């Protein structure tokens, strides 16, 4: 692709970084512009489309992190290729009609999600693992005071997925349904391998009780089965919450554990022995946490079925040591035990944390390997050039 192609990068609401722009500039694309407004990913108005149409009037290619139905609609009207690199799994807006346009080139990081989207008949959807902005993290000046502020034996950056609606929901469904939800959860929570999953069939009466009590506002925008809707929005979140509480509280019995999360007060009541901190910002504070922690935990939300979440790459990109739950695609990207360490249950997690806290040299070597692997293989410029060549092979032609 020629380097002077006019690219418009659309920022979606909720996406705080501009790492894709970094990557484009690193690759030598110098005609990149970005509108000064943000756009929604799902529901949109005609005014939104018109606003986008104004911005892309002279564009040859439009790009965004995550998929926006409004941007897809605008590009489709102008017959303009729209590349979206999806960082959420699943992203609900991919279940909208606009995802089916031939002008879209959609990249998702989870192979199982890819299969689901292919079965919807989305014409151009591909697999692309996420990347880290190594150029940005390499520029970080990390001071001793940072390390002092953020140091811990084990840290985790992420939400607990608790919400007011959740308790209300669980108390509203029938006792039988509640028991079945518990049984689905106990078949997954704390086990990370290819066998344990939340995506097991829900029995009919449980489905009815759950679906009756499920908040269906806005759901009809998305063409997905009602069972899948329950799995990703109720069961996956509940499983994520329990896995996080279970793992962190078990670790806190033996080690110095820090959690960086939204709603820290509430988290503290759930996890009295963990050092709870408020949210850290993505570009400045989070890499310092990763750098300053001996072990960085990755706990993947179970709606990501097989893919490698961004957190793993972000930790490695600052030379942090990753202790991650097993995910099917992790061994495809990294060598377990060399680039990072994987655990498959709580006992395994505790034993491996204990081992690597005692073996500093091995820990540092693995962290360094991880850093080199990301720097060599999973950077934005590399990923973007693969995205462009995949799209070009799939009959994509910039205007």
């Amino acid at each position: 692709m020629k380097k002077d192609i006019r690219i418009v990068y659309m920022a979606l609401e909720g996406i705080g970084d501009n790492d894709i722009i970094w990557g484009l500039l690193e690759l030598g694309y110098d005609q990149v512009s970005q509108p000064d407004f943000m756009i929604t990913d799902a529901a949109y108005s005609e005014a939104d489309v018109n606003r986008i149409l104004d911005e892309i009037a002279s564009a040859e290619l439009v790009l965004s992190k995550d998929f926006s139905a409004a941007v897809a609609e605008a590009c489709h009207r102008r017959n303009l290729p729209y590349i979206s690199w999806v960082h959420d799994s699943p992203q609900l807006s991919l279940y909208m009609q606009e995802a089916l346009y031939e002008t879209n080139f959609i990249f998702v990081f989870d192979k199982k999600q890819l299969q689901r989207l292919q079965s919807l008949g989305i014409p151009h959807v591909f697999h692309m693992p996420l990347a880290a902005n190594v150029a940005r993290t390499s520029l970080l000046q990390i001071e001793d005071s940072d390390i002092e502020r953020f140091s811990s034996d084990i840290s985790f950056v992420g939400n607990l997925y608790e919400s007011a609606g959740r308790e209300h929901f669980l108390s509203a469904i029938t006792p039988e349904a509640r028991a079945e939800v518990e049984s689905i959860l106990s078949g997954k929570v704390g086990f990370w391998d290819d066998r344990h999953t939340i995506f097991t069939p829900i029995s009919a009466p449980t489905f009815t009780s759950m679906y009756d009590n499920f908040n269906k506002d806005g759901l009809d925008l998305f063409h997905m089965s009602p069972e899948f809707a329950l799995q990703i929005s109720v069961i996956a979140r509940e499983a994520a919450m329990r896995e996080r509480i279970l793992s962190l509280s078990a670790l806190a019995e033996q080690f110095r554990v820090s959690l960086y999360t939204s709603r820290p007060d509430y988290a503290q009541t759930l996890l009295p022995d963990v050092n709870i901190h408020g949210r850290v910002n993505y570009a400045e504070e989070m890499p310092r946490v990763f750098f300053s922690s001996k072990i960085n935990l990755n706990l993947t939300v179970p709606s990501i079925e097989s893919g490698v979440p961004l957190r793993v790459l972000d930790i490695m990109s600052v030379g942090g040591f990753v202790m991650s739950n097993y995910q099917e695609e992790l061994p495809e990207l990294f060598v377990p035990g060399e680039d990072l360490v994987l655990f498959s249950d709580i006992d395994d997690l505790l034993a491996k944390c204990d081992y690597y806290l005692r073996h500093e040299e091995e820990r540092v070597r693995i962290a360094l390997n991880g850093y080199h692997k990301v720097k060599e293989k999973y950077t934005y410029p590399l990923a973007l050039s693969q995205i462009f060549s995949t799209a070009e092979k799939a009959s994509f032609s910039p205007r």
Partner: protein
Amino acid sequence: MKILFYRYGSILEPAITECFRQAGLEVAEETTQISKKDIPASQIASSVSDLLAKDSFLFVFSVNFFPAVSDVCNIYRIPYVCWSVDCPVMELFSPSLAHPCNRVFLFDRAQYEQFRPQNPSGIFHLPLATDVAHWDKTISSATEQIRKPYRSDVSFVGSLYENKKEYRKHPGISEKTSGYIQGLIEAQLLVYGHNFIADALTEEVTGELETLCDIPYGPVRSYISDYLIGYEVACEERHRLLNLLSEQVSVDLYTNSNTGGISPGIRIHKGVKTLTEMPLVFHESKINLNLSVCPIRSGLPLRVFDICGCGGFLLTNYQEELAELYEPGTEAEFFTSAEELTDKACYYLAHEEQRKAIAQKGYERTLREHTIAHRIRTMMQHVMRTL
């Protein structure tokens, strides 16, 4: 034994319910969608799942395929039986078509061949049919005075689809694309029994139409070939054939469409009520025309069975499945070109005895093999075998 009938208001539903009842099944009905169109999928799923939770059913049935109903039946592991009577149907492209609970009966064999790979053990071919007993009753109870206004030489009952051409008046459409489509339509109009529109669409044309048209959920190419161009072919075909025919014979047209493009020589009537007036038109016309819409690739539309079931003489465009269901020349007549249509119309208007004999034989065949009861019986055999 009880079944759940998810109803949306198809004209076939009451007769099908009656067949199920005669077969000894108790029929519970969910009827919300009859009066309230465009119910969101989540609401369909919710109401069907509430019904299935409360009671036990042998299977769930609907006329046409509803993905949300299938999703719920799949969870309940209860067979979902449906008879798809429309073409084209975007719902068939839903991933829900692959659910093992489905027993989907498609009336068009080409459509069946197209979708069967998605669910080989759950998709069947089942032609349409008609309710002869109902027509008999309606026709025999109509007095001479009521019948009289429906007498005609050649009649046609149906839409002209003139509103389906709007997409080509879009100011954004290029001359090249418009010309390509025009050429495609002209070519298709000359060919009977084979639809090549989808295969002949270039990426350039679909790409351009995609940007200009509002396309509902489902594959774009199928929507363009069936809904946009397919209906435009039907529109052109109906206008041209009716106008041409009216140069030679007297034609009566029953339609609610805008008749601006119709020759002044054609007698235009407003649309007829399907259950009460339509049978009188079919019975009282010397020749009843059937013009299938182009997206129906091989099967016979409902009108064919209705005409024959009313004892009317049928002159239809050639469709691949015609010879399997009626004996051409003995039970019904067909044409494969505009010329043949005019020739046969003139011939049969002049040969009353032959015409009446064919209409009678067509009626007998319908009564013997093509009633809704026959189809429900066939369908039940398939369903029972796989319960």
